[in-house]
């Protein structure tokens, strides 16, 4: 059973960057990459695909990242998923709010691709 990583971001370039960064894992391990462009689509994917790790942007149209995070964590069937929040906001209050909602990590843009790889490996226990 392959491990699934879902990337949710409305910014096409960021989505691409994450995809290209994480492609390495697809090559080396049994990992599948999925992408969504807004909160609602992301939530639909989460429900249908049940990914293991989610990179979730906070500022998105239709449904923001906090909301997606809250819904997922409130759902007992889904809440074993590991969520990494990505944001341009870097303030302590935002970080605190994200972690309180149950996210595993909070990464501030601009992030380092190497860091993304390292964290993903750790969380997926690869």
């Amino acid at each position, binding site marked *: 059973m392959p491990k699934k990583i879902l990337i949710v971001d409305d*910014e096409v370039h*960021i989505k691409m960057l994450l995809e290209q960064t994480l492609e390495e894992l697809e090559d080396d391990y049994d990992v599948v990459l999925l992408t969504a462009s807004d909160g609602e689509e992301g939530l639909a994917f989460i429900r249908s695909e049940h990914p293991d790790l989610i990179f979730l942007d906070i500022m998105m149209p239709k449904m923001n990242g906090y909301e997606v995070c809250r819904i997922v964590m409130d759902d007992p069937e889904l809440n074993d998923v590991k969520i990494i929040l990505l944001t*341009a906001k870097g303030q302590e209050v935002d970080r605190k709010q994200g972690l309180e909602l149950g996210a595993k990590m909070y990464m501030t*843009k601009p992030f380092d691709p190497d860091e993304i790889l390292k964290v993903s490996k750790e969380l997926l226990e690869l």
Partner: protein
Amino acid sequence: MEPGGEYGDGPLTSKHMNPLEYIEIRWRSLPVVRKFAAALGSMFALILFVAAVGFGALGELESKAGDIVADSMRMQRLALEVDSRLQLARQAERDFSLRLRDLGVDGARTVYAREFSARLGEAGRNVAWLQDMERFSVDKQDSYKSAARLNELYLAIERYSEHFRELVELAASTGADNRAFERKTGEMDGEFLRLTSLVRQLAISATDGARNAHLEIARSNVFIKWVLVLSVLFALILASSIIWVLNRTIVKNVVRLSDTAHELSLGNLEARATIQGDDEIGKMGDSINSMAVRITNLVNNLEGKAAAASDRLVEAIDSISEGFLLYDQRERLILANRKLHELAGDQSSAIVLGISAESMLQTYAHSGLFVNALGREDEWVHERLSQHRNPGPHMEEPLSDGRWMLIKTYRTGRGEVVVIMADITQRKRTVQDLASINSDLEDLVRERTKVLVEKAMELKRANERLRELDELKSAFLSSVSHELRTPLTSLLGFSKIIKRDFSRNFMPLAAEEKVQRLGTRIQSNLDIIGSEGERLTRLINDVLDLSRIESGQDDWRFTEVDLAGAINRAVSAARGLFTPKPHVKLTIRRFDVVPLVHADPDRLHQVLINLFSNAAKFTEVGEVAVDLFLDEKSMVHVCVEDTGQGVDPRYIEQIFDKFHQAQRGDTLTEKPAGTGLGLAICRQIVERYGGRIWAESQRGRGTKIHIVMPPTEPADRPLVLVVDDDSAARDYLSMVLKKAGYGVRTASDGEQALTLAAKRRPALITMDILMPGMDGRTAIQRLRGDENFKDIPILVVSVASDCHTAGGDATLLKPVNGDAFIGAVHALLGEDGPSRPVIALNDGVTPESCQLPSLCGEDITRCSEDEMWQMLENGFEGTVVVPESLADTVDLKRVCDIQHVQVLLLPSPEPTVLS
């Protein structure tokens, strides 16, 4: 006492009090004369009453005497009765003898003997009555005599009767004509004679007794009456003279005193009481007289003073430089001073005492002196009068001779009116001169002020606009920075991916040297993109940080920070910054023990890192040195000195400005320099915590950045090191000590305590005994063994079970009372502190041997153990001082359990060695 004073102010009525009280009150309110009259009357009445009783008794006596006389008469009559019966019996006896011959013995006996016996029996019965009467007689002396006489009479009658019987028998036996018979008759005659004389004597004595008694009584009666009358007369005269004397010596004097006092009270100070005599009343008169004299002197004195004061007042009023007028309540002039006459000049003749205000004003209105009155005299007088009656604001009056008068009118408390007139001509002229100068000046000032106000308004508006713009700028920067992050992420991320892919996949394929060179250049160009991107990221972060600080959005923590620890952390964190600079060394040069400062530890770390990174940036060779010390102003001082190129002194202040950098190089070829915001942020942070940051530099000689921060507590306060493994105990003792003004450091075991003491020498150490790691006993031994620390006082704070012989200077047993704790700390430091009552077990703790004089001071009770328990049971609150030598014998646990009692153990004094 005044009756009213006792019974209230209401009218006195007999209704609500008993009659005795009523009489008493009436008596008290009677005038003295009446009292004397009443006493005199009672005395007369008493004398007359005694006289009447005497006369009554005399009358009674007289009637008794009458009774006695009547009894005597009755006795006399009875005696005469006896006599007549005896005569009849004699007759019968004679007849018997004479008729014996005629009638014969039997016949005579039948007739005369019976007659004789009857008469003699009657006489005997009368004698018996007399005896009865005699028995009730009053006069005992007399009575004996009469009784004897009556007895004799009775016996004589018996004898006489016997004789007659013998005669009859003789007659019967021998007949009458013999000698025996005649002898018997003769005997009988003799007997009869004796009888009659006895009866006569009895009658005479009865008559004489009665007469004598009567006479005697009558005589005594008269005498007693005379004596009575005389005594009453004498008593009356005596009483009258007593009353007269009393009246003369007391009542009149009292009345005179009362009259004098009344006169004095009415104000007649000449009144004197003329009382002769040296008794109390005389003395009272003297007192009243001397009092009157003193009062008179006093009054005279006061009058003199009043007159003097009045004279002085008049003189003072005369000497003032203004005219002064005083009108009484009827508007009559009663005082006008000399100056007023001078002011009035020619017109002063109108100022006459007693003149009414109106007529005086009339005179002056028509004199032409007052300009305002010319042509409208009546109106002017009316105005001035109304001003006089209801004093209003001061008035200025021009005079016809060119002078100006200021007229002030005041009404006094008694409704009198004071008018003061001052010559203000000089002032008026000056004012007029000044006024013309002033009006020019005022115009000028007004114009200038207008311009200034306009400028100020403009400045204010500009300021507001600036502030708005600043806020707008902060908001703009914040949002722009956010928006910059996303493209920057792509830029940095993709350049990294490109470089990775390029290095892994393309470089190995480049076989030609030219292509390899090109590949290397592409790689280095990608590095530039990456490093510039990182610089851009830092810039964005700094801009955001600064705008947060400036807009006040940041939450500032305010905790006590040890700068020594902060520097240690920052130095080890900044090691990485110096890795690319092998010729630069980061060292801590001076590292004094300093007090804590108030700051946010993370922000302080940020400041230090910033300073180190700046120093690293601009230094190529040499060292970056850190100093930490307490400067002469008792501020905590941090200095970071580098051996870099330095800053031109002209720009030294500007380096703390935003976006200013001391050197600007070609960022395409040089390594990225700072964002230009670091020092600005540092300044914001340091100043936020009450500190100051500044730089010192010479071009080519390196730079010194100084930071000073205020300590949380003044450094001159004594430092107390609290050692306890229980954090609650540490916090409590720290709080108590801080409240009392001590600086406090805390340690949780002996090891930490020794380290802290070595850093900064405490004035006193409080030590728990049972602690994990190094325990208190060991710590105390180590401290005592160290030359530097052996004289630091140690206060052991511990539980009862492990209390003593730990080697401290004193031991407080837990639970610790805050006051007692501070008292012990004060005492150990040799300071006077708040004292609580102290009980000391007397073994060994004497004032001389007590090592804590201020604890064994005045409020101390020395006692035995039994007395101590007694006091503790009676609710003693305070400190119990126990010598350590008794610690094993006294039940300390029990003492500790008593509320509000603190146990303090003191080492027993060492035994004195006798020389």
